[in-house]
């Protein structure tokens, strides 16, 4: 549990946020300059806010009213910087073990396990200058974890990497979330990363909290969709791989029924997240016939929210999960869509990108 309440005035920003993050990955999401890095720097102790209170798992790190402000080295908060910040004069191994020099407790994370998990075994004797961008990110991640922190801060750890390297690192962060179970505060302005990793989302705009809640709810909230960006808005649903079919399609069981994807998405039985862009969802009032799209899911219109002409965001309920669809006002009127109406959501298999599945 991480309680954050901050107010801080910078020349270009007036920050005032207040939220309590539960277990798992909490994504601080918002455009550049919204104040996300200011928040994590305050948690790390690298910035002293004008007013605020920060409590991690019951331990007060900052309370300006009570005059408490622990220095960074006493906070035990691992920080993975965007620019890695490896120590250039130390080997990868010495970088990884740097935090343990100052760690008095006996409960240090197991070195071998973290090295294996992050695939660092072959890099230990190298210097940071001889590492690729993706390798540097992994070493930075390992260094932060091995300092035995109570939580991790990650400030756009993937922003400097290309798509291939991102795809290389994401599974490691997922394993961190699922296996090490460290609370993580994850700064990003990339919705794909957030959809893939976040348990909760804090949506920040110009220093204010626009929305906070479980990732599924925030991503399928039609009122917040414009803030995510028209091209990027889209809900996340969970699924389980059923089988790999002979024609190359993968069948995935979801709350709304089976969904077919045009590429291998994992072993049968594996759980994964599917991010469905709001612009890729088509609605039909009756069950459509003679359509090329493979995925037709029965849904209920839970909420219709105009997002300025000519578009409307619709939250669609299927089982206990939601889809988000972006429609024109004209289609909503032509179909006579109202809240509570039962209809069909159509998702073209080919429109779901592989980076949105994992």
């Amino acid at each position, binding site marked *: 549990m991480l309680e954050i309440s901050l107010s801080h005035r910078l020349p270009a920003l007036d920050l005032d946020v207040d939220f309590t993050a539960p277990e798992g990955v909490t994504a601080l999401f918002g455009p550049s300059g919204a104040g996300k890095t200011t928040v994590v720097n305050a948690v*790390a*102790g*690298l910035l002293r806010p004008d007013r605020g209170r920060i409590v991690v798992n019951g331990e007060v790190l900052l309370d300006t009213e009570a005059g408490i402000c622990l*220095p*960074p*080295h006493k*906070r*035990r*908060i*691992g*920080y993975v*910087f965007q*620019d890695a*910040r490896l*120590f*250039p*004069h130390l*080997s990868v191994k010495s970088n990884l073990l*740097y*935090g343990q*020099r*100052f*760690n008095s407790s006996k409960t240090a994370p197991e070195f071998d396990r973290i090295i294996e998990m992050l695939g660092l075994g072959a890099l230990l004797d*190298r*210097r940071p*200058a*001889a590492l690729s961008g993706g390798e540097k990110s992994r070493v930075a991640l390992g*260094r*932060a974890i091995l*300092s035995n922190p109570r939580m991790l801060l990650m400030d756009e750890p993937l922003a400097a990497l290309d798509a291939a390297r991102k795809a290389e690192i994401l599974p490691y962060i997922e394993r961190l979330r699922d296996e090490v179970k460290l609370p993580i505060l994850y700064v990003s302005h990339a919705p794909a990363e957030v959809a893939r990793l976040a348990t909760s989302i804090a949506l920040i705009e110009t220093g204010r909290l626009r929305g906070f809640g479980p990732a599924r709810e925030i991503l399928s909230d039609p009122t917040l969709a414009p803030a995510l960006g028209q091209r990027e808005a889209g809900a996340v649903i969970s699924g389980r791989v059923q089988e790999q079919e002979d024609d190359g399609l993968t069948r995935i069981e979801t709350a709304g029924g089976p969904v077919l994807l045009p590429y291998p998405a994992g072993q049968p039985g594996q759980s994964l997240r599917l991010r469905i862009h709001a612009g890729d969802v088509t609605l039909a009032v009756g069950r459509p016939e003679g359509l090329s799209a493979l995925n037709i899911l029965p849904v209920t219109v839970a909420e219709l929210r105009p997002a300025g002409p000519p578009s409307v965001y619709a939250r669609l309920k299927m089982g206990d999960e939601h889809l988000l669809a972006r429609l024109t006002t004209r289609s909503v009127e032509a179909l006579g869509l109202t809240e509570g109406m039962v209809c069909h959501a159509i998702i073209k298999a080919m429109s779901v990108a592989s980076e949105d599945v994992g």
Partner: protein
Amino acid sequence: MSWLSPSDWQAVVLSLKVAGWATLLSLPPGLFVAYALARWRFPGRSLVNGLVHLPLILPPVVTGYLLLIGFAPNGIIGAALARIGITVAFSWRGAALAAGIMAFPLMVRAIRLAIEAVDPKLEQAASTLGASRIASFATITLPLILPGILAGSITAFAKAMGEFGATITFVSNIPGQTQTLPLAIYSQLQVPGREAEAARLVVISVTLALGALLVSEWLARRIAARIAGQS
């Protein structure tokens, strides 16, 4: 070395001793002042910066005279030192002090440049890993600025070896006590017919200076290579 007279030897040994102590004693305060100027924003920073550079811009005679006033047995600092049994005026210690003060700005400049080249974000990263300020300085910044410290020390040493004006003003020109190489050369030149002796001392000066430079270049390359991880 038979071509060196005992008095020549005396001057060489004294010069090395004076310059060595001058460098050694100005290193810790030089490191501190350089760090403060590079990393801290504090009121009076420009004033400190100006004071540090003062010996560089003042005529050396003036620096020597100010030292004389301060450190003479009846001067403010001199009297205090005399009470604990240390005399500075007209001794090799005074020569080391004068040389150290003249070399101080060069030392600070070199180290400050090196510190400014180290990304302060690395120290931040160290602090999030549990290192206190002192620990992150000792484990991150200090190893990274070693070439700068070395360069500063060598320049300071060379400056101290060559220091003339402040030394002769402050501690005079006493053979065996305060007569360093430059002062010895100057003394020889005052006496008609001693050009050969002066030339010998000049050759020694040039050799020592060049030798120090070569050694420092070699050391700096080795340290830089070690930091970059190529050795």
